[in-house]
């Protein structure tokens, strides 16, 4: 199975004018629907909805509290390596960029893990560039075994893999994966990824599905908003999530809403996604898929992150460093090695205090590992 043929069908029916066809009445109907249809989702994403954001917000807020409570799960990324063989024009890890390249040894991974665990976080997202010869599956497997000593939940945001490779990592203790399609526009994708293994659009598009089949507990997808037409990318992200939820009901599906951020390199985004646009997408997604997880990263600034909390957010990163080795060694030169610049540099304690002051409980641990090796003898 693959989302690809379904996506092509949707994409063909999506000339730009289509979003402009919806009226306020269509949007109102969509807001009041118990179960929103694809057509409703489009209406909620359309320009006509921009005057009804407050109505959407009330429903989004109610649905979020109903299904998730006043809680937000926290995690932080750990950059294991920034070595990369790809030429993505918008990314700081682009192999032609002159930045200091490194990868952590297992001892360093352990030290980073210990430093992060000391902040109270229990859910870790590990990241690498795409360099299978150096930071391939063997390396990720070894790192996971080290990090499981500190974290009940370890997720990956790395290169696209085969189903068997995902299954190997699940057996090693990985329980979640994040894969950004970047843009669902296949032609634009080719332009943005001129060389390197990531150029294979279809292999990347089907990666979340392979991860579901391999037994990942949480699969998180997203488009990098700003690379292409944000409405189109947002719509296809939502439809991709709906496809995965329908076909893999045993997997928790989540969606990230990252916007383009400044990075090392001179490429500028094609479109600017405003705060208003971002909020509309967030709420439309919540109304379309009331049970989907929604992740907001530190690409967004503190004030914005707090303001959008009630509108659908269920997961947040905190205490973030995008530099390799940036947690145990604060002098590791984030400005030179990071993948992008963050906007919310608050510590874990500061993020927790802010959540609590708004009546939300930060959740550190939301999974008990069930690996056979851990269960033995109990």
């Amino acid at each position, binding site marked *: 199975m693959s989302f690809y043929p379904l996506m092509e069908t949707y994409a063909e029916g999506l000339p730009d004018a289509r979003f402009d066809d919806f009226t306020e009445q269509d949007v109102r109907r969509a807001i009041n629907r118990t179960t929103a249809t694809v057509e409703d989702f489009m209406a909620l994403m359309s320009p006509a909805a921009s005057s009804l954001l407050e109505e959407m917000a009330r429903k989004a807020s109610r649905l979020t509290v109903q299904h998730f409570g*006043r809680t937000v799960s926290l995690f932080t990324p750990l950059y294991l390596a920034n070595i990369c063989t790809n030429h993505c024009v918008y990314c700081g890890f682009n192999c032609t960029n002159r930045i200091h390249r490194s990868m952590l040894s297992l001892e360093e991974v352990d030290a980073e893990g210990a430093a992060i665990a000391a902040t*109270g976080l229990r859910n870790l997202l590990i990241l690498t560039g795409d360099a299978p010869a150096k930071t391939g599956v063997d390396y990720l497997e070894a790192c996971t075994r080290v990090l499981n000593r500190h974290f009940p939940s370890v997720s990956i945001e790395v290169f696209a893999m085969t189903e068997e490779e995902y299954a190997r990592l699940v057996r090693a203790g990985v329980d979640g994966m994040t894969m950004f399609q970047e843009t669902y526009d296949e032609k634009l994708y080719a332009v943005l990824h001129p060389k390197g293994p990531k150029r294979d659009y279809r292999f990347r598009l089907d990666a979340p599905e392979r991860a579901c089949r391999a037994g990942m507990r949480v699969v998180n997808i997203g488009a990098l908003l700003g690379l292409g037409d944000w409405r189109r990318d947002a719509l296809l992200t939502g439809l991709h999530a709906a496809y995965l939820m329908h076909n893999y*009901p045993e*997997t928790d599906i989540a969606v990230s809403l990252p916007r383009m951020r400044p990075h090392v390199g001179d490429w500028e985004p094609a479109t600017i996604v405003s705060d208003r646009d971002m909020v509309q997408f967030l709420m439309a997604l919540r109304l379309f898929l009331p049970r989907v997880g929604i992740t907001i990263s530190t690409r967004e600034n503190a004030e914005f992150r707090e303001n959008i909390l009630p509108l659908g957010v269920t997961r947040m990163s905190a205490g973030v460093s995008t530099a390799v080795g940036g947690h145990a060694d604060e002098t590791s030169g984030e400005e030179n090695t990071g993948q992008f610049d963050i906007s919310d540099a608050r510590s874990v304690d500061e993020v927790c205090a802010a959540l609590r002051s708004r009546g*939300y*409980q*930060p959740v550190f641990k939301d999974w*008990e590992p069930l690996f056979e090796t851990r269960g033995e003898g109990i």
Partner: protein
Amino acid sequence: MSKDTFEIGGRTLTSRLFTGTGKYGDDGVIPEVCEASGSEVITVALRRVDLESATGNVMDFIPEHMQLLPNTSGARDADEAVRIARLARAMGCGDWIKIEVISDNRYLLPDGYETVRATEILANEGFTVLPYVNADLYVAKALVDAGAAAVMPLGAPIGTNRGLKTREMVRILIEEIDLPIVVDAGIGRPSEACEAMEMGADAVLVNTAIATASDPVMMARAFGRAVRAGREAYLSGPGAKRVLADASSPLTGFLGGAA
């Protein structure tokens, strides 16, 4: 009413309202919720328990007198539920376990077959097993045979606050199953909890409706009162308990005997 108690797993309970620990904006409110509701049994998702955490562990907020009911939330099959239950016991959470086996994250409906399988294994290991299931007579009967201590049918899907949608099926379970029936999931308002108790349910479990209320403590108190009111209404005998087809023949009654 003073002696209206019931028993599960050898423990005598006076409150017929079970509460939960999920979805609160601040776990610090849990002790007040327990007190206001009068509840004696509280569920906790083992996947959220973090005994290694120096602060903020949900277990720190559960009053000592409460009967802990760890649940297997997150389990996708019987084997995972069994492993979670064993972990819970090893972590000192006691022998009670609420079986939740859900492999459908869209609707969160329980898998009856896997639930029965997990119940049988855990009951044989000495657990007091309270399985969460669809309101299905055959699954409930299989749970009795498997050694369950109670049966917990859903009123509506988890977290929906839609009320007692399975009313007729729950009524059948109340009539036919000789184990405590605890209506779990879906109850969104005190009046719905009251209705379940009026029907003859032994208890109800309410989490979302309390935890996501604007004032969880006040809502907990309201649920506690509603459950007592429903129970009193049931005990006062509003009508016949059984609703089987009536064999009498009104048109031939004049003959002086059953036709």
